[in-house]
C-alpha cells in the first residue's frame, strides 16, 4: 500500500500530460463548416415559383413552406392594405444574415434601435416629422385631447393571430392601469389632467384614446423609444398570465416558470420597459410580436441573440415584396467594446453604429476600410458637445451666490478656449457654440445666442469677474471669492462620451485663467447619484440638444432631473411635495416659473404654430438666464456598413429620441450575394 504512492503521483502527472496532449491534438485542424445553408437557399429562384399559385413576393423558404402547407399563402398573412416602404436605393433580394453585436447582458438599446421600431407612429426617415407606422392612420381632436387610431385589417402577430384594437385596450386597462403590474402608474407622457386616459376599442380596427386634458406632444412621444410599449402586448398570449383572465391554470404556470407570483410571472413573460432589461421581448422567445424578425434564440440563452424573419410581417416594398429582405439578424453578445471594434475591423459586423463609434476609434476604423470591406455612414448629432452645469441650487449659500451671479458664469465662459478643445478632441471638427439652438433648426436659431460669450478672452473674463466682485488673488494666483475668502470648486465628470477629457481641458483652462477649479473624474453612477442629491459644484454633461426640443427642453429651463443646473427647482416643478425626492423642492424665481408655465401651455395646445411661439418665448428667457455653458457644435457621429449591405442612408440623424437607425426602416436593408 505504502509503496504505491509514488505510482499515484506519476499517474497524476501522466494524466495531466496526456490531457494536454489531447488538447493540443484537438486544437490542430480547423473544424468543417456545419453546412452551406445560405448558398443552398438561394437556388430556389423566384421565377420558377409563380405557376403553382404561390406568390413569388416572399422569401424563398416561405414559398416552400406555403407549398408544403406549413404556412398560409402570403395574401392571408399580409394585411389587406400592407404598409408600403419606399426602399432607400433599390429593391432588394431575399437572404443573408445581418451580423451585429451587443455588449453585455442588458444592452437592449441597440435592439430598440434596430429591429423593434413598430410603434403606432414613427419618425419620417430623416426626422422631418411624425408619420403613422403600425397604425394605418390617426386623427386628433382640435384640443389634442382625443386621438383615434385606425389599424390595418388583417394585420397579424407573428404567430398568425390577428392584431386588433383590443390588444391595446388590454395592455392599457389590464397592465398599465393594474396597480400590481404597474405600481409606478402611467408613463409621465401619458398623463394629462387629473384622470387617466381612456382607451376604447371602438371596433377591431379602431382605437380611441381620450385624455383628461390636452396632450399636445402625444404623437411625437409615440415615435420615440418610449412609444414602443403600445404595440407589443398580444392579448391572446399575455392574458394567460393575468389573474383576471386565467382562472384555470395560473398557479401551474407560476410553478412551471419558477415565478414567485402572478405579477412576477407576467413581468417575466410580457413586461415592457423599453431600453431596460425588463423588456420581455428579448428574453421570452415565445412572445408573439409585430417586429420584422422574431426572436428564436433569446437574450441570455447563449452567446448570441438571434432573430429570424417574421412570416406575418405587415410591410411590403413598392413592388409588393414582403419585407424584411434579410433572413436573420444575429447579435453576438460580447463582453467588451474592444472585441467589438476588432470585429468591425475584421469585417465581421455588417452594420452598426453603437459602442465602437467614438471619435478616437474613427482613425483606426478608417484605416481598415479596405480590408474590412465596409464604409462609413454619418449620424448627424445635432446640438452641443458639452455643457458645464454650475449648480444654481447649490446647498452651500456662498457657492450658490457666486454661481448664481451671471457675471461669474460669463467669466467662466470667456475663460474657455473652445477652439483648443475642438482642435484636441475633435481634430478641428465643429465650431465654438453656446448652449443655444443649433443651426440646423432654422425655426428657432438665434445667431447671437449661438456664439454668445464663446470668445476666448481672459482679460474680458477678468472684467466680468470684477463685476462679480472678484478682484483679489491668493498666493497661488487664484481669485478669491467676493467675500475675500479662497474660492475653489470641483468639476465632476465621468468617462462616458469622453466628457472627462473635456472636463480636464476646461479645468486646465480655468486654472490658467486664475480660477481654482479641481477635476474629479468619477464613476457615472456616482456622478448621477451626486447630481440627484444636489451635491455637485459643476457637472459636466450635455448641452443644447436638437429636434426633440419640445419633448425634452432640459437645458433651457428646469425641466427634468437631467436639468442638472437646478435640481431643487426641477423638484419644485415635477414633485412639489418633495416626497421621496433626493433633492428637496425650492421655489424658483418668477422668471423661471414663467418658463415652466409656458411649457405647460405647450402641452395643452394642439396647435403647432402656437407651440412654436411659446417655445420661442421659453428660449429667449433661457438665452438671458444663461443656465448652461456650452462648448462646441457636435461633429457628426458615424456608423459602419459593409459594402454588400444595401439601402442604408449615407446620412441620418443620430439621437436616442430618433432611435438611430430604426426610422430608416431596417426591414428594407438587404445583402447582396458574394
Amino acid at each position: 500500500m505504502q509503496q504505491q504512492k509514488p505510482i499515484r503521483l506519476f499517474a497524476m502527472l501522466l494524466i495531466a500530460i496526456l490531457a494536454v496532449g489531447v488538447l493540443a491534438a484537438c486544437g490542430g485542424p480547423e473544424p468543417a463548416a456545419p453546412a452551406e445553408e445560405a448558398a443552398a437557399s438561394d437556388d430556389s429562384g423566384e421565377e420558377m415559383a409563380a405557376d403553382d399559385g404561390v406568390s413569388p413576393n416572399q422569401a424563398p423558404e416561405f414559398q416552400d413552406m406555403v407549398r408544403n402547407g406549413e404556412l398560409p399563402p402570403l395574401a392571408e398573412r399580409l394585411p389587406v392594405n400592407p404598409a408600403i416602404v419606399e426602399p432607400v436605393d433599390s429593391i432588394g433580394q431575399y437572404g443573408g444574415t445581418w451580423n451585429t453585436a451587443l455588449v453585455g447582458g442588458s444592452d437592449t438599446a441597440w435592439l430598440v434601435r434596430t429591429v423593434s421600431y413598430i410603434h403606432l407612429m414613427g419618425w419620417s426617415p430623416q426626422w422631418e416629422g411624425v408619420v403613422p407606422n403600425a397604425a394605418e392612420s390617426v386623427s386628433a381632436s382640435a384640443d389634442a385631447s382625443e386621438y383615434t387610431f385606425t389599424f390595418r385589417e388583417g394585420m397579424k402577430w407573428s404567430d398568425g393571430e390577428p392584431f386588433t384594437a383590443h390588444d391595446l385596450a388590454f395592455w392599457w386597462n389590464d397592465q398599465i392601469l393594474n396597480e400590481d403590474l404597474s405600481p409606478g402608474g402611467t408613463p409621465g407622457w401619458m398623463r394629462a389632467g387629473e384622470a387617466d386616459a381612456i382607451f376604447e376599442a371602438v371596433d377591431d380596427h379602431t382605437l380611441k384614446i381620450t385624455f383628461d386634458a390636452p396632450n399636445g406632444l402625444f404623437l411625437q412621444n409615440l415615435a420615440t423609444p418610449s412609444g414602443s410599449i403600445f404595440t407589443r402586448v398580444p392579448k391572446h398570449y399575455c392574458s394567460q398570465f393575468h389573474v383576471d383572465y386565467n382562472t384555470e391554470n395560473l398557479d401551474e404556470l407560476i410553478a412551471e416558470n419558477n415565478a414567485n407570483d402572478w405579477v412576477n410571472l407576467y413581468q417575466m413573460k410580457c413586461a415592457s420597459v423599453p431600453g431596460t432589461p425588463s423588456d420581455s421581448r428579448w428574453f421570452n422567445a415565445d412572445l408573439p410580436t409585430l417586429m420584422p424578425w422574431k426572436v428564436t434564440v433569446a437574450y441570455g440563452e447563449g452567446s448570441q441573440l438571434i432573430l429570424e424573419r417574421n412570416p406575418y410581417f405587415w410591410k411590403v416594398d413598392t413592388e409588393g415584396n414582403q419585407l424584411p429582405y434579410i433572413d436573420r439578424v444575429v447579435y453576438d453578445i460580447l463582453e467588451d467594446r474592444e472585441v467589438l471594434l476588432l470585429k468591425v475591423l475584421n469585417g465581421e459586423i455588417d452594420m452598426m453604429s453603437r459602442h465602437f463609434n467614438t471619435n478616437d476609434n474613427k482613425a483606426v476604423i478608417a484605416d481598415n476600410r479596405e480590408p474590412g470591406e465596409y464604409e462609413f455612414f454619418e449620424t448627424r448629432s445635432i446640438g452641443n458637445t458639452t455643457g458645464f452645469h454650475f449648480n444654481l441650487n447649490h446647498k452651500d449659500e456662498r457657492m450658490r451666490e457666486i454661481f448664481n451671479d451671471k457675471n461669474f458664469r460669463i467669466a467662466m465662459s470667456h475663460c474657455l478656449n473652445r477652439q483648443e478643445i475642438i482642435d484636441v478632441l475633435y481634430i478641428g471638427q465643429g465650431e465654438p457654440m453656446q448652449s443655444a439652438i443649433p443651426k440646423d433648426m432654422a425655426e428657432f436659431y438665434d445667431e447671437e445666442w449661438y456664439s454668445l460669450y464663446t470668445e476666448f478672452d481672459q482679460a474680458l473674463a477678468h472684467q466680468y469677474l470684477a463685476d462679480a466682485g472678484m478682484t483679489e488673488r491668493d498666493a497661488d494666483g487664484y481669485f478669491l471669492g467676493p467675500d475675500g475668502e479662497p474660492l475653489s470648486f470641483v468639476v465632476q465628470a465621468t468617462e462616458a462620451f469622453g466628457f472627462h477629457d473635456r472636463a480636464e481641458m476646461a479645468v486646465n483652462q480655468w486654472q490658467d485663467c486664475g480660477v481654482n477649479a479641481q477635476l474629479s473624474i468619477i464613476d457615472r453612477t456616482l456622478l448621477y447619484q451626486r447630481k440627484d442629491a444636489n451635491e455637485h459644484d459643476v457637472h459636466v454633461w450635455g448641452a443644447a440638444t436638437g429636434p426633440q426640443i419640445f419633448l425634452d427642453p432640459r437645458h433651457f429651463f428646469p425641466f427634468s432631473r437631467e436639468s442638472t443646473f437646478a435640481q431643487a427647482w426641477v423638484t419644485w416643478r415635477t414633485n412639489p411635495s418633495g416626497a421621496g425626492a433626493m433633492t428637496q423642492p425650492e421655489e424658483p424665481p418668477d422668471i423661471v416659473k414663467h418658463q415652466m408655465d409656458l411649457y405647460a401651455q405647450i402641452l395643452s395646445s394642439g396647435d403647432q404654430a402656437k407651440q412654436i411661439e411659446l417655445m420661442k418665448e421659453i428660449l429667449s428667457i433661457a438665452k438671458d438666464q444663461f443656465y448652461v455653458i456650452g462648448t462646441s457644435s457636435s461633429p457628426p457621429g458615424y456608423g459602419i456598413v459593409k459594402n454588400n449591405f444595401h439601402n442604408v442612408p449615407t446620412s441620418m440623424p443620430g439621437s436616442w429620441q430618433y432611435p438611430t437607425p430604426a426610422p430608416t426602416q431596417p426591414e428594407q436593408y438587404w445583402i447582396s450575394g458574394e
Partner: protein
Amino acid sequence: MLQFLLRRLLYMVPTLLAISIVAFVIIQLPPGDFLTTMVAAMAAQDEDMDQAAMAALEEQYGLGQPVHIQYLKWMQGIVTRGDFGDSFGWNKPVSELVWGRLALTFVLSLASLLFVWVVAFPIGIYSAVKQYSIGDYFATFIGFLGLATPNFLLALILMYIAFKFFNQSVGGLFSPEYQEAPWTWGRVADLFAHLWVPVVIIGTAGTASLIRIMRANLLDELRKPYVVTARAKGLPEWRLLFKYPVRVALNPFVSTVGWVLPTLVSGAAIVSIVLSLPTTGPLLIRALLQQDMYLAASFIMLLSILTVIGTLVSDLLLAWLDPRIRME
C-alpha cells in the same frame, strides 16, 4: 476521518452564513443601486427612461425595501427553495444564468490549471536542481516576465495580433458557425481550437508563480538531510528526486489547490472580459458594475462556497499525501 469530515462540514455553516452577509454588504457598499446605475448607463448613451417605469421597476425589484429585509428574503429563497433570486440585468432567475456558464468556466479553468502544472512542474524542478545555472536564470526570468505582464494587456495585444496577422475571428470560445450550434464533435473541436489562447494567457501568471513556488519548495527540500540519506543508499539521482523532495515539495501545492479554482473562476474575469469569453467572470464583473445585486451576491456566495469546499478538499488531499497530517 468521518468525524473530522463532519466537524469540518459543521464549521462551514457559520462561515458560509457570515459570507452571505458580507456578500450582501459588499454589493450594497457602492452608492446607488441597480436602477440608478441603469439610468446613469442609459444617460451615458443619451437614452432615458420614464419616471413611472422607474417606479414600477423599483417596486418589481424590491429595491425600496430595507436592506435587511432584502437579505432575509434572499436567504429564505436559498434555504427553502434553493432559489438565488432573479437577476435584474437579465430578467431571469440567477440559477439559469450561472449554471450554463459554469460548465465552460470549469473547462477553461481546468485546462488552464493543467497547462500551468504541466509547464510549471518540470521547469520548477529543473530550476531548483540546477540552481544558479543559465537555465535557472532563464526560467526565473521567463517566470517573472509572466508575473510582471498585466495579463489583460497581453490578451488585448494577442487578440490584435491574431486579427492583424492571422485574420482570425476574435473573441469568444467558438467560431461564429458553432456559437449556437448543439454539441457535436465538431463543436468540441472548435472549442479546443479556441481554448488555447485564453488558457495560455490565463496560465502565464499562474505558471510563473508556480515555477517560483516549486523551485523554492524544492530547494528547501533538497537541503534536507533525508535526501543525503537516500543518496547514501545508492538511489539514482532522478529516482531520488522524484521519490523524496519533489513529493514533499508538492504538499504546499496541494494545500493551495483548493484556492486555485475560485481564483481561476474570478481571477480570469478580466482576461475573459477582454477576450469576450462566455464564462462566469464577465458575468460577475458586469453584475457588480451594474449592481445586479442578487446575481452578484449569489456569485460571491458561490465562489466563496467553492473556496471553502476547495480548502476542505485541499486538506483532505493533503492528509492523503502527508502522513504527518493524517495522523494528527
